[in-house]
């Protein structure tokens, strides 16, 4: 396996507050990594730094060998990112939004139906996104992130607001992406979900990586940290 993501000595401060301190980890191709930690631990900041939405004070992030700080646009092409509150064009339908993303990512329109199927929006594909529920918007954003089959998928609390069948479908889709060689980071505070699908768990607390263990070690993590809002 080769690393699709390498994070080395990442640091980020806001004023005097250290949001992320010396965070290092990697994600291999085909690996699904759960990023967990209590609220305010630095998960979202870490994901923003990896996706290039934020610039680190120190440290490096490489996605598929591309340095995010040096070539943020090149790195974006290698990442499918679903932010915690995804924004989409409200006056497009999901089909049109996916077709738009397919075009700007330079993949064929043939991927659109597949992405719609993957995010389970087939029946609602021709409704305007402004009519969607929050869960449906998340699913549409997930379709946008996965349509070009990027080597790395970054999902920030993307299972929030999904009904159980949609969450299940999403997890199956992520697992399938891993089987096709993608690396996935799934930030969540729902450990039960990760127990079933993750290969590895990275736990962040107060901006530091406090554990980086195989998913089988989740039980031990629960005991050590007594489920910190997790």
């Amino acid at each position, binding site marked *: 396996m080769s690393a699709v993501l390498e994070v080395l000595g990442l640091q980020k401060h806001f004023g005097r507050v250290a949001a992320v301190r010396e965070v290092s980890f990697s994600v291999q191709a085909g690996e699904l990594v759960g990023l967990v930690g209590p609220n305010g631990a630095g998960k979202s900041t870490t994901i923003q730094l990896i*996706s290039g939405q934020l610039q680190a004070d120190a440290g490096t992030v490489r996605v598929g060998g591309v340095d995010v700080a040096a070539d943020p646009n090149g790195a974006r092409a290698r990442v499918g990112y679903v932010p915690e509150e995804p924004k989409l064009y409200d006056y497009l339908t999901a089909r049109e939004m996916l077709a738009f993303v397919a075009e700007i990512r330079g993949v064929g329109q043939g991927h659109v139906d597949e992405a719609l199927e993957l995010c389970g929006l087939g029946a609602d594909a021709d409704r305007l996104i402004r009519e969607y529920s929050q869960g449906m918007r998340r699913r549409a954003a997930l379709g946008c992130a996965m349509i070009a089959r990027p080597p790395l998928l970054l999902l920030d609390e993307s299972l929030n607001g999904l009904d159980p069948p949609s969450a299940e479908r999403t997890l199956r889709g992520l697992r399938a992406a891993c089987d096709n060689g993608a690396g996935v980071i799934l930030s969540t505070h729902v450990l039960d979900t990760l127990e079933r699908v993750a290969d590895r768990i990275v736990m962040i607390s107060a901006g530091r990586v406090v554990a980086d263990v195989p998913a089988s070690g989740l039980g031990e993590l629960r005991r050590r940290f007594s489920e910190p809002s997790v």
Partner: protein
Amino acid sequence: MGLRDNPYHQAKVRQRRRAGGAWAGLLPVLAAGAAAPLAEPVLFDFIDAGAISAGVEGLALRGGGLVVAALSLHTYADLVRGPDRAVLDPHPVQARPLLWAIAWSTARDRLYLPIGLAVLAAPLLLAGHHVAWLGLVGVLLGAYAAGLGVGFAVHLGAIWVGRSASLARLLDLLRGDNPRMQAALIYAPGAALVVAGLAVTLGAAGLRGALDGRPAGWAWALSPAVLGIAGFALALPLAERFYVRATALLTEVDGQVDHRIAAEGARGAAGASPEPVYLEWTAGGRREHLRALRQAWRSHRAWAFAAWLLGLSTLLAVWSDEVDVTARIFAVAGGGGLLMAALPLRLAEGDPPWLDRALGLRPGAVAAGRALTAVGYAQGVVLPGLLGALRHPAREVLPALIGVEVAIFIGSCSAAALAGRLPKRAAWLYGGLAVVAWAWIGGGFWARLIGIGGAG
């Protein structure tokens, strides 16, 4: 890649078609049509005096200045903080086609500016000065091009400045309470206004020369348009380098602001009083007013600085040797004051309709708080005018300033009421009403009513 093959443009076209409101841009043009005869006594007194070239130069300068000022802000709002950024942030960006799409959209949405001003100048056309009117419209369109081209280039350049380590010390000197990187963004509209404004000055002077019989003046009259094209040509490569990088800068700025607000909240929770804001003492015990003042200072503090800058032009107007000082006060302070009176529209922006009810706030009190905040901010426009009383008879200056205060009060209340009741259409409705109101008071109505000045 043409616009037909431009995916960003096509997505915008589709959305615009479905979102409706295409008529909205017509409103300011109609308002300008209604305002034209009302403003005639002040704006077009040069026609009767036979000073066509000088009068047209003045109109081109002020109208062009207004266009570039508006576009220096709109280009920032559309390119740097526009709605596209959040949608496109997770994806790679083809910066050139994207800039074309944004520029086309901004140009289309703001076309009412030069058209409205051309309509406002209709009395010149109706008086038979066709060439002068066409020349004026040409300079206004040039100003429109300059505002767009220079605006995009300067705002993209500001991203570079905001990230530059070598300019960090300069930004620290300028930033005040703001995060360092934000300093570059704050001053960018001003820089765009200065650069495009210089071209408009040249263009207006060129037009005057041309109308006075010097053919080379026509070439100078084109200078704003040429600058606009050059600015856009520069903006295209800048977009490739800095459009995507702007996201990290904006996230950083927002993160630092959020952090500061959270720290202030924590101070408040610990029993310490939060940092006082501009004009906080005017709120007394009214919590809705205090909330509006805090929101205005924390999110829209540029309005406070802009008011005092406009106040400088009021001072210049009343300090000049102009015979009819009241007409100048009405035109300059009235225009600036009515602009400031639009603050409630910004304060209400983005507030869902249920929010105030959920917070247990009375809609009337919320609107009053916003209106009073706008009135307070607008004092920066009016108060410097008081110094004019040292130079001109106080019986002319003071009633004129009182007239402007009345206009500001009515304008602020109208803007606050519209923002609460018709949030989607409030800006357009207020804009149209404000243009007519400005022409009404600027055109000498108030002066005639209270029997001052010579505008009537």
